[in-house]
């Protein structure tokens, strides 16, 4: 978040709370605006909690995700010993859900990194150079768009023996950056005509420097919002794949395959169906609200007057 220098100064003066004695950096403004979005802040706290539960929780919770026949009773309702109940394969459901949450978060975060790393740079370069470079780069994006996403990931992951979260995340990440690239390119096309780019050129800045120091910092907001959307769609895609049986498979687990296992007995063993599903909804909901908060926070037209 190094967008302190290049942003046009006018943006600050124009916003709603310009009448203060102290000047604020853009970063401070963004944080303040984000804090106003109550749901986004709640979601951020929830996300931290989820991260803690997923990655630190296993150290404290008694049961893992492996089946332990004899130790763990089969398909028992939630109790003091097994908080979320147990499955038909003698697994502790909370242990499974912790593992599943871990997988979903890892996939989401890696996809976000790839989405920003490839998509944003791709879009910025295409928009900056225009001409035939832009044409070729965007046709490649078109090709990736035409390829049905779910279908290709499913087709490839069936071919891999025992797919892990890493392979799924790489597949989704390497195929899914098109939207971000398009959004960033659109923004860069208008940014590149502004004076500060011209000024940078005039003092002899290289193209690399213009892309990384001047263009990308100015589209941080769009990139971050786009990344949160990419996270949600990656998590939903992976769980859908695992639900269909083409994703992460036993002995490892994912929230999608847990829902798939529980779906058949939703009537008489509801915990098997509802707990993993609600966890999944919760994860996606937090990212969506954080994305919404970021969108508001980075929107220069947004004033602080909003309730």
């Amino acid at each position, binding site marked *: 978040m190094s967008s302190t220098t290049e942003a046009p100064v006018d943006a600050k003066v124009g916003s709603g709370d310009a009448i203060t004695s102290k000047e604020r950096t853009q970063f401070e403004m963004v944080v303040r605006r984000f804090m106003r979005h109550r749901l986004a802040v709640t979601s951020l706290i929830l996300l931290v909690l989820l991260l803690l539960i997923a990655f630190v929780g296993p150290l404290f919770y008694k049961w893992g995700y492996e089946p332990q026949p004899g130790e763990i009773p089969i398909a028992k309702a939630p109790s003091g010993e097994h908080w979320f109940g147990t499955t038909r394969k003698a697994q502790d459901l909370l242990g499974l859900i912790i593992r599943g949450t871990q997988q979903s978060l890892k996939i989401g975060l890696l996809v976000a990194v790839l989405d920003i790393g490839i998509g944003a740079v791709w879009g910025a370069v295409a928009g900056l150079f225009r001409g035939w470079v832009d044409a070729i780069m965007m046709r490649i994006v078109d090709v990736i768009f035409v390829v049905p996403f779910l279908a290709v990931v499913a087709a*490839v*992951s069936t071919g891999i023996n025992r797919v892990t979260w890493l392979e799924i995340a790489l597949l989704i990440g390497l195929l899914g950056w098109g939207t971000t690239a398009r959004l960033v390119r659109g923004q860069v096309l208008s940014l590149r005509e502004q004076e500060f780019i011209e000024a940078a050129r005039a003092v002899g800045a290289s193209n690399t420097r213009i892309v990384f120091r001047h263009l990308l910092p100015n589209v941080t907001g769009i990139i971050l919002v786009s990344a949160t959307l990419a996270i949600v769609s990656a998590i939903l895609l992976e769980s859908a794949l695992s639900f*269909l049986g083409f994703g992460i498979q036993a002995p490892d687990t994912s929230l999608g395959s847990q829902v798939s296992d529980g779906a058949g007995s939703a009537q008489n063993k509801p915990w098997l169906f509802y707990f993993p599903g609600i966890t999944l909804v919760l994860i996606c909901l937090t990212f969506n609200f954080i994305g919404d908060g970021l969108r508001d926070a980075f929107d220069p037209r947004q004033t602080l007057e909003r309730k």
Partner: protein
Amino acid sequence: MLAYIIRRLLVAIPILLLASLFTFVMVEYSSDPIPTYRQQLEQNATASGMDAEAIDAAVERFKERNYYDRSTPERYWLWLTGIGGDGDIGLLQGEFGPSLRANYDIKGQLGDRFFITLRLVMMAVICSMGLAILAGVVMAVKQYRKIDYILTFIGFIALSMPVFWFAGLVKNMAVSYNKATDTETFATYGENAAGGTGNMTTFEALLDSASHLILPSLVLMLAGYASASRFQRAAMLDVLNSDYVRLARAKGLRNRTVMRKHALRTALIPMATLAPVAVLGAMAGAVVTETVFEWQGMGRFFVDALGQRDPFAIQAFLIISGVLTIIGVLISDLLYGIVDPRIRYE
């Protein structure tokens, strides 16, 4: 306009070719059916009385029948043009290639299933668009009021809901309802009654289809609704804050007239362009929905093909999706020009 359409279609051809090459190579390297086939034969060797030589010969026949005796580039060319094949392959000749499964006709299956899926998708998209327009307008008119927050929250939940879980939830509730009332109000299995509609009157058949259609389209509505209602809200807000709406109010028009005649008509523009894209999204969502509700549609076709590792069947689904995507996006761009007079195509 016509020149624009033709140019767009011409640009689409190389994109489709590249995309199909890409998916072909992906499918090719991720599933090789030969070892699986050989393994099957070897496992059944004692039962069928085949010796090693007979197995080799059978594998050779299998390779030849499915064109696996050729290299990947040769097979791609063959798949595309059908030149040098046995007449069951070649996209340009309208053939999708042989299936690895016995007595499975890819083209025939796709023909039957396409309209089953289309029925579901169209129903879902029309309902979700209608609902999204309604919700979007209400949210915009009542911006920052309680109803706006409630609808926004519902929208976010819809956006975060995995289709497969929502499908399971709806199915589960319907089963509970059927049990509680001891009726068959909601059909939760298949696209038609199990015995087929052959011995029903037209009216009964229609009723039967409708009762099977309700739940899956409800599920499929969800994803489309979530994003469309946000778009509609933003578009309506834009329009409501514009000068010409203020002018219409200022010259004393009734609020209802302003809303209906001035604001809503302009605010519907983004919806028109979103609809074709929503159809594509619903097509993808149908893969999961059809699996949960046991429909024999396109989505199920793809899931089966993947499960059986049937390369030409997978490829057939991928290329149809690709063509539909290009057509959908083109229609969406054209609609934009038709409904919005500010946009011209040259």
